[in-house]
């Protein structure tokens, strides 16, 4: 029995032997069923590993057993990999090392049975999700078969959480399918569908769920012949060839670095271990895996990534109603406005299976929306991501109309018409006449108040903000904005809708800018102030990218569009006063119709060819306002600090005002809404690493800088709110434990 003393164990751990059921369906065959009673979704926690050890003892001691099947409690459940909660809590390398060793040894014992015992065949029979450790168990068996159903997925997502497959996966997968394909799986963290897994070589066979156990037994008892795909000549020419391996590894590293700018060590370490897997001994490779996981799991990056993952999982609870059931996903959805946002929302809704009705007064906009949607479905059909009947379904789900009729049976409407209060109110009033009294009227407004839109609408409790981000199909966050009268049930139904679209919802108060735009305001404006003060625009963007933002603030302004950014900035100024006073830099650019990416020129010059990267414009010095105070020479780190602290000061105020429920939601919103460096865990998690005292001091220093002190609203922007001052005084954290 393995010693799990001192290792993280859940409180309700069952007694020994319960988590893995041993079944003997026929002579010579043992079936292990992973069925821990304390988990609705089984996880390789200590109790399960301990019981797997006990079960393997039984198999090893009985020489008459020649077939082993490992399976889950039903065809929709296998095991969800290692115990993420437990790993997140570990800070001690030695303990991590023991956890890794336990898993490696257990799976190695399964692997060894095939080599040490004549004719021994082990089969992983999987239905349901099999990420991470579960996939590694499958790799250790002679064969893996998957249920061909929608619930089944398999892959190695560990690098997404800042670690790497440490239970033999980084070693076994390249040996099985070659380095290139293995890296694709490990670095993308993708969870493969059954067909994709079969095509990639991760598994050996698919079958119908009803046949899973029978076929697994047939294979384990060698009644059915099944060939494992051999690498053939590729094994010699590629896997064992140091040049080929080095080439593949270096190409992979380049790709990783261009995406991560060196902030994420896990993928790079995974590449190294996988590259050597074919030519080093199993024990050496396992040791490398263990040491890598020891270093990564105890480091801050992994902890932050796991935290964010847990935050996004807990966001799923937002769809729960007060009676404990989940709110239903609407099947009939309306969208008003076929602009950039509206048509993307409509297309997403149609893709996810809702009957979607898109309205716009301009017929040409409706034509564009349909053409875009159809082109999108067509391209997925061509890439074989969709079958023809699924493509037909996606096409059938989107209808367009240029008159505001036919919404009587629509359950949820998202309006994305012009940002004018009178227009929005009029359109909601018209809809309220047509629609049922419990139909949700959601607005995608980014600058108007939900309450203002809701006034005089019958049943105002069903009016809510549903704020998407541009581009809708790529940005994962949705802000659900609660008006003062919005009901909790409506919030839950909106969360269900957002989650069905594959988005992560965050609930915010109905204040100007809600959360993300309110924080982006000072972030972007401070960048403009630095530009106005003579700082090189290339350095501004580079500094923030190095800090970990997905793109620099000036590039982001180009993306957003200067007209929209200016409008948003003015709204924030109107609502929050001096501290949000906008810079005048954009006015000069807007005057020349140079609005950013949409006009092909902004801070950058954008080519028509999407593959060509934007280049910084050469004439930006023209737009430095004549009377601005020059800023002293700042280092890259100081540039980043100025801009990020401007945002942080505002975040503290937002938190104080309870714009979101807690620091957790705020961090989730910064990561998913503006791509705030995930490896830092979110804005407030980062702030906690600096410490409130240091932050307050830095804010005061910045406030004293000549250019900040001289400008209207400068000191106010960098003032510490009551909350921040208190945290500094008490040396406390934003994230109270």
């Amino acid at each position, binding site marked *: 029995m393995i010693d799990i003393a001192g290792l993280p164990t859940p409180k309700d751990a069952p007694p020994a032997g319960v988590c893995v059921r041993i079944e003997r369906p026929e002579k010579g065959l043992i079936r292990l069923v992973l069925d821990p009673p304390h988990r609705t979704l089984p996880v390789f926690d200590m109790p399960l590993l301990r019981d797997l050890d006990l079960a393997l003892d039984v198999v090893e001691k009985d020489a008459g057993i020649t077939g082993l099947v490992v399976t889950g409690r039903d065809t929709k459940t296998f095991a969800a990999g290692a115990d993420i909660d437990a790993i997140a809590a570990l800070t001690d390398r030695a303990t991590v090392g023991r956890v890794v060793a336990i898993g490696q040894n257990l799976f190695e014992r399964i692997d060894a049975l095939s080599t040490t015992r004549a004719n021994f065949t082990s089969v992983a029979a999987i239905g349901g999700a099999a990420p991470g450790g579960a996939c590694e168990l499958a790799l250790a068996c002679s064969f893996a078969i998957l249920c061909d159903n929608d619930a089944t997925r398999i892959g190695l997502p560990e690098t997404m959480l800042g670690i790497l497959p440490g239970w033999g996966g980084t070693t076994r997968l390249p040996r099985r399918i070659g380095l290139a394909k293995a890296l694709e799986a490990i670095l993308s963290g993708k969870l493969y569908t059954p067909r994709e897994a079969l095509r990639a070589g991760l598994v050996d066979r698919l079958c119908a769920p009803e046949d899973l156990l029978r076929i697994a037994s047939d294979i384990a008892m060698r009644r059915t012949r099944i060939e494992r795909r051999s690498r053939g000549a590729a094994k010699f020419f590629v896997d064992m060839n140091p040049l080929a391996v080095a080439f593949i590894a270096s190409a992979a590293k380049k790709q990783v670095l261009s995406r991560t700018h060196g902030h994420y060590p896990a993928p790079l370490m995974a590449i190294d271990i996988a590259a050597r897997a074919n030519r080093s001994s199993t024990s050496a490779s396992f040791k490398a895996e263990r040491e890598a996981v020891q270093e990564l799991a105890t480091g801050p990056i992994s902890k932050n990534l796991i935290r964010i993952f847990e935050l996004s999982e807990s966001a799923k609870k937002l769809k729960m109603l007060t009676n404990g059931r989940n709110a239903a996903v609407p099947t009939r959805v309306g969208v008003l406005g076929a602009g950039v946002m509206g048509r993307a929302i409509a297309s997403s809704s149609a893709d996810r299976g809702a*009957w979607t*009705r898109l309205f716009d007064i301009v*017929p*040409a906009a*409706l*034509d*564009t929306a*349909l*053409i875009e949607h*159809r*082109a999108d479905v067509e391209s997925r059909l061509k890439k074989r991501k969709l079958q023809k009947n699924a493509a*037909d379904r996606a*096409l*059938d789900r989107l*209808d*367009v*109309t*240029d008159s505001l*009729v*036919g*919404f*009587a*049976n629509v359950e949820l409407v998202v309006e994305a018409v012009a940002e004018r209060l009178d227009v929005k109110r009029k359109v909601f009033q018209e809809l309220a006449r047509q629609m049922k009294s419990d139909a949700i009227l959601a607005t995608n407004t980014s600058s108007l108040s939900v309450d203002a839109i809701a006034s005089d609408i019958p049943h105002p409790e069903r009016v809510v903000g549903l704020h998407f981000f541009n581009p809708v199909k790529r940005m994962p966050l949705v802000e659900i904005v609660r008006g003062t009268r919005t009901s909790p049930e409506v919030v839950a139904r909106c969360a269900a809708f957002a989650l069905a679209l594959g988005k992560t919802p965050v609930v915010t108060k109905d204040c100007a800018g809600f959360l993300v735009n309110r924080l982006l305001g000072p972030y972007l404006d401070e960048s403009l102030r630095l530009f106005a003060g003579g700082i090189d625009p290339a350095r501004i963007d580079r500094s923030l990218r190095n800090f970990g933002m997905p793109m620099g603030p000036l590039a982001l302004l180009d993306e957003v569009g200067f007209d929209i950014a200016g409008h948003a900035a003015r709204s924030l100024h109107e609502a929050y006063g001096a501290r949000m006073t906008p810079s005048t830099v954009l006015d000069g650019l807007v005057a020349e119709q140079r609005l950013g990416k949409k006009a092909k020129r902004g801070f950058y010059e954008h080519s028509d060819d999407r593959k060509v990267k934007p280049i910084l414009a050469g004439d930006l010095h023209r737009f430095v306002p004549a009377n601005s105070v020059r800023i002293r020479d700042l280092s890259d780190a100081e540039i980043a600090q100025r801009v990020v602290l401007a945002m942080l000061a505002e975040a503290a105020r937002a938190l104080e005002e309870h714009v979101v429920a807690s620091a957790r939601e705020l961090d989730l919103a910064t990561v998913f809404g503006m791509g705030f460096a995930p490896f830092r865990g979110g804005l407030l998690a980062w702030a906690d690493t600096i410490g409130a005292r240091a932050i307050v001091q830095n804010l005061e220093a910045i406030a004293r800088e000549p250019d900040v002190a001289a400008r209207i609203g400068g000191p106010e922007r960098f003032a510490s709110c009551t909350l921040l001052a208190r945290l500094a005084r008490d040396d406390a954290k934003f994230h109270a434990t």
Partner: protein
Amino acid sequence: MAAREGVGSSALMTAIHSRDSRRQVVIVGGWRTPLARAGGVFAREDAGHIGAAIARETIARCNIDVEDVDEVIVGCAGPPHDQANVGRVIGLRAGIPERVPGRTVARNCASGMEAITEAATCIEAGRGDMYLVLGVEMMSRFPLIMGDRLTRFFAKLSSARSLGQRVATLASFRPSMMAPRIALMEGLTDPISGMIMGKTAELLAREWNVSREDADRFALESHARAKAAREAGILKREIVPFLPIGAREGQHALAHDDAVRDNQSMESLAKLKPYFEKPDGRVTVGNSCGITDGACAMIVASADRARELGLTPLAKIRSWSYAGLDPARMGLGPVFATAKALDEGGATIADVGSIEINEAFAAQVLACAKAFDSDTFAQEKLGRSAKLGTLDMSRVNRNGGAIAIGHPVGCTGARIVLTAAHELQASDRELTLATLCIGGGQGGAVLLERAS
């Protein structure tokens, strides 16, 4: 009573008496796509997609809850081979619950009307209260079919067992086997009389003394009326703009019937040579119906159910009928069918404010008008003592007809009923009529009455 085409008076009496006890059937509302020239902008559409799209729009605009639909009935003369029961497919693709059955009906050119009258029949029989009906035809998609010799060749090839057999079969191939059968042309030819539709029109033109000039003038008028209706925006009440599959970036939804020739003239019509009987024929492609694609959907319900659901119907169905006649003279079908429908509805031509008569051929419509106006014809063929009545041509196809906008076979029957239903609003008389001739020797007619 001598055998004759038309209706017997005893059947007529039964019809009138039982009409009063039958449930009242209404048309709640309907919408259609614009009709597009075959091979044109709708060429990549298919009946399932376009039918489902117009069905969804009709359901939405009529404020119907799909849960209330009892059956889906679609008229289509040539459904796609991979959606053979296109009625079922359209129902599911339109979001009708799967428990609601669906079927496809056919009566050649009147398939769209057949769908409506089938729904009415079911309602009268008490089998259901609300039906989604459609008429749809993609003339562009009528296939080219392998000839019999080529079909047999492939069959022999696939059943060949040895290499020798296979080689021998391959050697029997002749290029002439490749000549395709054009399904559209074959479909428009009546197998009993052996006459393609245009020839039946030529026969009527000669028998009823319709000249080439008469036919051309009628065709010109059809285009002119269609153009005027478009410019006055009259058809906005019926047409939903439609963006077809295959539209590329920058292209726009079709909002009007696109086969209408705004610059049609007697000169350009005169230049055309007769198509079906050379050199002396009177029927050309210019004075025949156009070939177009399109779909039309309607909600047909019992008056009671419409009232229960708070719906305001567009029209009441007063009566309808189908009649058979000599396939060689199928163009006169409207006269026979209208006679029956008027009798059943207890009405006369004088009560009809507006007539939609499908313009299969100008000569055919003109022959019908003369037959309506002929006592002799009424006595000899319809078993009546006097003519049905003189048609006021200003009340016939006010907004143009199939010569201008085309005749998607399965769609037309529904399209003309929809137009006739809308014409009720503008009419100064109690009733409107939709009637058409049917290839194979039939006629269909639906008599509509104001709803309120």
